[in-house]
């Protein structure tokens, strides 16, 4: 099942991608070797107990051809999570300068394609120092496959003490081979992002994923984020791909001393979604808010595996994931918290609440604490259950109809997560997407 990808890789490496610098080519070679060695995960592996990627493994997804769909700026605005403002737009992982708009970015902020950023020069040096240094491509077949096909993607660099006040969006649009060309099989894209926010800088970033066509498609994304000393980052991520999309994602962040990262994850789309999030608190006094919501219906399946790695003392992490599951949807949450030896005074809190709106909906929730330090405060809790009848009755006793009461209690699950998003403008946009998802 891995062989077709190895053949595709050989073609990819000898054709268009051959112009990449040697260091990148070397990483790719290593990555395809790791992919071959690891193979697609199976449900026999603990981390994949609840999620079968057989539909992906059993299909050969090819790289999209050179034909591109014709997109108007108006279409892009409708697919963007923010609707307006500066953005980098990618179609099947490839940068589309004509659809992007970078007006108004302050000095000290570089936003460009990875193809551009990995060329030689000082920028190339920056990319080389960070790219593929954090994402676990040695251990994850999907991250390895993405890295093997790494040619383009988003590159955002915010220089030290720079303030990026307006949210910057990185928008990845996925096409489907058949829908675009009218022929050929399903396609895969490997979106890649590298966000570097240097010491003392502030930034709000949005990473969003949407589909252009509703055909069978696979997105295999990897994002690496570095938050420098004392920097403050709000990173939003919205996945609202089509109902025939497979979405696999690896998000890796590294925080330095006294930094703050608010990572907000919203999963609405895809028929099969798996998101591995690993955040490393790698400097004293760092603070993380990991705030996620999945709203699923039909026969959607979404699996979030999060790892919060407290590598240094005096760090705080607060993780909240809520799930709203209707019809036959299946939500999986696995939250691992690691407190390394010496990471004293760690303050870590994790909760995962799941609301089942039908008897056929299902949620699996697994917390995992691995604590190797003694002076720490760690709490976790998870719930899975139907609508609270007492809450519904309470609302009805105040005059609300049963339907309004139900939609309010349901929306409350989402609102808890939305309420933690610090940017009111972004929150409002996402609130609209969530309401549409709940309707």
């Amino acid at each position, binding site marked *: 099942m891995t062989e077709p990808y190895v053949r595709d890789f050989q073609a990819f490496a000898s054709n268009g991608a051959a112009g990449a610098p040697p260091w990148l080519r070397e990483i790719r070679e290593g990555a395809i070797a790791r992919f071959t060695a690891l193979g697609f995960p199976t449900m026999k592996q603990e981390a994949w107990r609840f999620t079968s990627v057989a539909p992906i493994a059993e299909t050969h997804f090819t790289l999209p051809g050179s034909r591109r769909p014709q997109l108007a700026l108006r279409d892009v605005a409708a697919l963007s999570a923010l609707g307006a403002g500066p953005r980098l737009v990618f179609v099947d992982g490839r940068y589309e300068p004509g659809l992007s708009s970078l007006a108004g970015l302050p000095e000290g902020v570089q936003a460009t394609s990875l193809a551009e950023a990995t060329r030689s020069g000082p920028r190339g040096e920056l990319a080389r120092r960070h790219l593929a240094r954090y994402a676990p491509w040695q251990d994850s077949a999907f991250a390895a496959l993405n890295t093997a096909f790494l040619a383009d993607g988003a590159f955002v660099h915010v220089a030290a003490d720079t303030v990026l006040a307006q949210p910057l969006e990185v928008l990845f649009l996925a096409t489907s081979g058949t829908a675009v060309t009218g022929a050929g099989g399903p396609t895969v894209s490997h979106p890649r992002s590298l966000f570097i926010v240097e010491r003392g800088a502030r930034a709000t970033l949005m990473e969003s994923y949407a589909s252009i066509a509703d055909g069978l498609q696979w997105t295999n994304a990897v994002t690496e984020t570095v938050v420098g000393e004392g920097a403050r980052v709000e990173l939003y991520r919205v996945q609202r791909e089509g109902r025939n999309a497979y979405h696999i994602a690896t998000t890796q962040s590294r925080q330095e001393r006294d930094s703050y990262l608010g990572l907000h994850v919203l999963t609405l789309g895809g028929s099969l979604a798996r998101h591995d999030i690993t955040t490393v608190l790698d400097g004293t006094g760092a603070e993380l808010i990991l705030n996620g919501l999945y709203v699923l219906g039909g026969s959607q399946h979404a699996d979030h595996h999060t790892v919060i790695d407290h590598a240094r003392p005096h760090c705080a992490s607060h993780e909240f994931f809520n799930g709203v599951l209707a019809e036959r949807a299946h939500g999986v949450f696995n939250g691992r918290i690691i407190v390394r030896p010496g990471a004293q005074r760690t303050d870590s809190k994790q909760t995962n609440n799941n609301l089942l709106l039908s008897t056929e909906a299902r949620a699996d929730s697994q917390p995992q604490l691995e604590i190797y330090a003694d002076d720490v405060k760690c709490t976790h809790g998870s719930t899975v259950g139907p609508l609270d009848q007492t*809450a519904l009755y*309470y*609302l009805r006793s*105040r005059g*609300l109809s049963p339907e309004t009461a139900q939609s*309010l*209690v349901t929306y409350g699950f989402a609102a808890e997560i939305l309420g933690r998003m610090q940017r009111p403008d972004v929150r409002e946009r996402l609130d609209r997407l969530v309401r549409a998802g709940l309707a």
Partner: protein
Amino acid sequence: MTGKGKRERENVLLEIRDLHATVEGREILKGVDLVVHTGEVHAIMGPNGSGKSTLAQVLAGHPGYTVTAGSALYEGKDLLAMTPEVRAREGVFLAFQYPVAIRGITNAYFLRFAVNAIRKHRGEEELGPVEFMDALEEKLKVIGWDDSYLNRPVNDGFSGGEKKRNEILQLAVLEPKLAILDETDSGLDIDALKTVAQTVEKLRRPHNATVIVTHYYRILTHIQPDVVHVLSAGRIVKSGGKELAVELEEKGYDWIREVA
């Protein structure tokens, strides 16, 4: 019928006759009779587990209780045939003994739904967010709260006393015709107790009525009840003026139980 008798009939807001109710197959209310006229304040006292909350919840329409016999007329209409939301829109309000948390939904957001549901029912125009907030600010002052409580999820993480105050805020905002307060005075500090009393007094209008379920004489010194009832083992076993509350405070319930 004499003139006085006729007037009294017209002034009946709530008329409960021989009400029996069960929960999980167990009979809790065993024939309750109670008539509340407009303009009156009634107090219901009685031992733990005697059925006071059951009565209150049956009147509000809790789906967990089954009425097996008897009737309850509200403004001459069959209250028991109405859904909980219709009862609320018709002007019945129950301040819960144990208020329920609604996670993720702020007090302000929730209250606007409640107010507009009732306004719509009355054929009044619904309030927009701005008008509503203006109206709400006033009520907040009445109960001595600042805005911060409006932006917190309904009763979520509220202290016991805060939950009770939140019920009073809802009472003040919704201005019901029939308010039933189930131990709203329990767990309140002295100032909050006065606020409850003041809010009830403010609502005391010729066309309204209040039923206060309480264990404490204290609230009744602030709110002068017209009638005091004792509910014991699912029936009202004694009714009297406010002096009955004084007597209960001194003697407890045993002497009445024996009578019953």
